[in-house]
C-alpha cells in the first residue's frame, strides 16, 4: 500500500512543482486582507501604518525576489545582494550629485546595475562555480566586505542624504495622511513585480531562464546557453536590488545612505524570502508585504516594541512560522529521487 503510493509519487519525476498553496495558508492570507481593509476603514492611524508597512514590505519583497531568483537558478544564497543594492544606490546618488534628474538617474542606475550584476557573475562567481555551492556562498560573503570597503573608500562612510523621487507633502484622503514616498514605493514595487512576472511568463528569454534553472542539462539539449542565463539572472537580481536600494534610501528604515545601510534591509529580505518559501517568487512577495505590514502595525500599536526591537521581532515571527511550516508559507516539501 505504502509502496504503491510511493511509486506513484516518484512517477511524477520527483520534483513536480504544482502551485499548490495549502488551503489554511490561503485562508490566513484572506483573513489578513480582510482585517487590514476593515481596520483601515475604521481607523486613520491604522490605515497610515498599513500603507507604511506595505511600502517597506514592497522593498523587502523586491530584494527577496532577487534572492529567490539566484537561489532558484543555482541554490546559492547571495549574501552580497544587499551590498550590490548599496553600490547601485551610491551610483544613483553620484549621478544625482552630478546634476542628473532623479528618474534619469534611476533608469541609468538600473542599466548600470544590470551590466554590473552580469559582470560580477562572469568574473567572480563563474570561476568558483565548479567548486560547489558552499564555495560560491563564501565568495558572496567575501563580496559583502569588499563592496563595503570599496564604497567607503570611494564615497567615505559618512551618511549621505538620498533624495526622494516623490513630493514631500502628504496627500489626505478622508482624514488619512499618506506619504507620497510610501505610495510611490508601493507603485514602483508593483510595477517591478508585474514586469518581472511578464518577462518570465511570456518572453522567450524568460522561459529559457526558467528552463535553465529547472533542468540545466535538458535546457542545453534544446540549445539554451545555460551559462548566459545564469549571468542574466545575476543582472536581473542586481536590477531588483537597485530598485530596492533607491526606494528605501530616503526612508528611515535604512537611515540614509552609507556603506552598511542595506544590512538590516537584507536581513528583512532574507526573512521575507524564507517566510514565503525560498524557492517561490510569489511567496517572496507575499512574505515581504506581510513582514512589512506586521512590523509597522506592531511598532505602532504595541508600545513595548520600539524600533530597536523591530529586527528581533521580525526574526521571532520568522521562527514561529518555520516551526509550523518548515518550508515557508508557500514552500513544498521536496521529494527527490535518490
Amino acid at each position, binding site marked *: 500500500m505504502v509502496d504503491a503510493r510511493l511509486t506513484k509519487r516518484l512517477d*511524477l519525476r520527483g520534483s513536480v512543482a504544482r502551485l499548490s498553496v495549502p488551503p489554511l495558508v490561503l485562508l490566513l492570507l484572506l483573513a489578513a486582507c480582510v482585517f487590514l481593509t476593515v481596520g483601515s476603514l475604521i481607523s486613520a492611524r491604522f490605515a497610515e501604518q498599513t500603507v507604511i508597512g506595505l511600502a517597506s514590505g514592497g522593498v523587502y519583497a523586491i530584494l527577496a525576489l532577487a534572492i529567490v531568483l539566484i537561489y532558484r537558478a543555482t541554490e546559492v544564497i547571495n549574501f552580497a545582494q544587499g551590498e550590490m543594492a548599496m553600490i547601485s544606490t551610491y551610483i544613483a546618488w553620484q549621478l544625482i550629485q552630478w546634476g542628473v534628474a532623479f528618474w534619469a538617474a534611476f533608469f541609468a542606475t538600473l542599466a548600470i546595475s544590470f551590466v554590473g550584476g552580469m559582470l560580477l557573475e562572469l568574473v567572480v562567481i563563474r570561476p568558483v562555480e565548479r567548486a560547489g555551492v558552499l564555495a560560491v556562498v563564501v565568495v558572496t560573503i567575501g563580496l559583502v566586505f569588499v563592496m563595503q570597503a570599496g564604497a567607503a573608500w570611494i564615497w567615505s562612510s559618512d551618511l549621505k542624504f538620498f533624495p526622494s523621487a516623490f513630493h514631500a507633502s502628504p496627500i489626505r484622503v478622508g482624514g488619512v495622511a499618506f506619504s507620497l514616498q510610501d505610495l510611490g514605493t508601493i507603485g514602483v514595487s508593483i510595477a517591478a513585480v508585474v514586469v518581472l512576472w511578464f518577462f518570465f511568463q511570456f518572453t522567450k528569454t524568460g522561459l529559457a531562464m526558467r528552463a535553465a534553472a529547472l533542468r540545466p542539462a535538458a535546457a542545453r539539449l534544446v540549445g*539554451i546557453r545555460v551559462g548566459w542565463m545564469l549571468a542574466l539572472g545575476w543582472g536581473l537580481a542586481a536590477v531588483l536590488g537597485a530598485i530596492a536600494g533607491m526606494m528605501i534610501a530616503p526612508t528611515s528604515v535604512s537611515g540614509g545612505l552609507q556603506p552598511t545601510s542595506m544590512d538590516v534591509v537584507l536581513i528583512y529580505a532574507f526573512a521575507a524570502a524564507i517566510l514565503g518559501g525560498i524557492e517561490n517568487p510569489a511567496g517572496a512577495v507575499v512574505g515581504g508585504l506581510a513582514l512589512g505590514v506586521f512590523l509597522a502595525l506592531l511598532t505602532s500599536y504595541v508600545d513595548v516594541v520600539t524600533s530597536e526591537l523591530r529586527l528581533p521581532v521580525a526574526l521571532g515571527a520568522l521562527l514561529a512560522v518555520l516551526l509550523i511550516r518548515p518550508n515557508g508559507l508557500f514552500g513544498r516539501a521536496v521529494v527527490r529521487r535518490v
Partner: protein
Amino acid sequence: MTALLELSDVEARYGPIKALHGVTLTVDEGQITAVLGANGAGKTTTLRAISNTVRRTGKIRFDGKPLARGGPESVARRGIAHVPEGRGTFAELTVTENLRLGAYTRRGALKDDLRRVHSYFPWIERRGGQQAGTLSGGEQQMLALARAFMQRPRLMLLDEPSLGLAPIVVSEIFRIVKELNEQEGVAVLVAEQNANIALQVADTAYVLEVGRIALSGPSADLQKDESVRKSYLGY
C-alpha cells in the same frame, strides 16, 4: 543516398571506464537508423557522443562538416534534436511551454509549427496548459518527440522511446516516428532495446556489443539473421 551523419572511430569514456571502443556508423539523409544492443552496450553513450554530452574522441561529421565540440547547445543549433533517456521534458512547465522551448534555437512565429504538431499529436492541442509532469508516461514521450520536432531538426536522436511504456503505446510512438520521418523528411537515429519494433521501422540498423559495432546492415537482413534473432528478437 547521401550521408547526413558520419561517426568514425568514436571513443567515449566515463572517468576511467571506456564506454565506446571506436564506433563507426552512418545515418543517411531521410532515413531511420537503429542502434540495438543490450544494457550497457553503449547505445546511450553513442547518442551522447553525438550531442556532446559526454567527452569523446574520434571524428563526427554532420551535413559534410565536422561537428564542433562547443557543448550540447551548439550541436542543437546545428539541427540535431536529442531526446535523451528520461525524455528531457520540463516536468514543472506546461505542455505549451515545453513546445516553445523546443523552438528556442529558431526565430519567427511558431503558429505553423504548432499546427503541425497538433496534427501529429491531436491531444496536445487540448492540453497545452497542463503541467508536463502530470502527463502519463506515453504522453510525456510524445511530448518529448513534439518538442524535438519544434526544433525543425534535420536529425532526431531518440534514446529508448519504448522505455517503461505499454506495448500499444510503443507501437503508437514508433508509428508517429515513422510518419515524421516520411512526411517531414527528418532523419532519425534511434537507440532501442526493443529490437523487434525498431527493426520494423528502421531502414538500417547497427548492433552494439560492449562498446563496439558487432553487426550492421539493412533492417530486413538483420531480421533474418540467426544470431540477431536469437539474442535480440527472442524467437
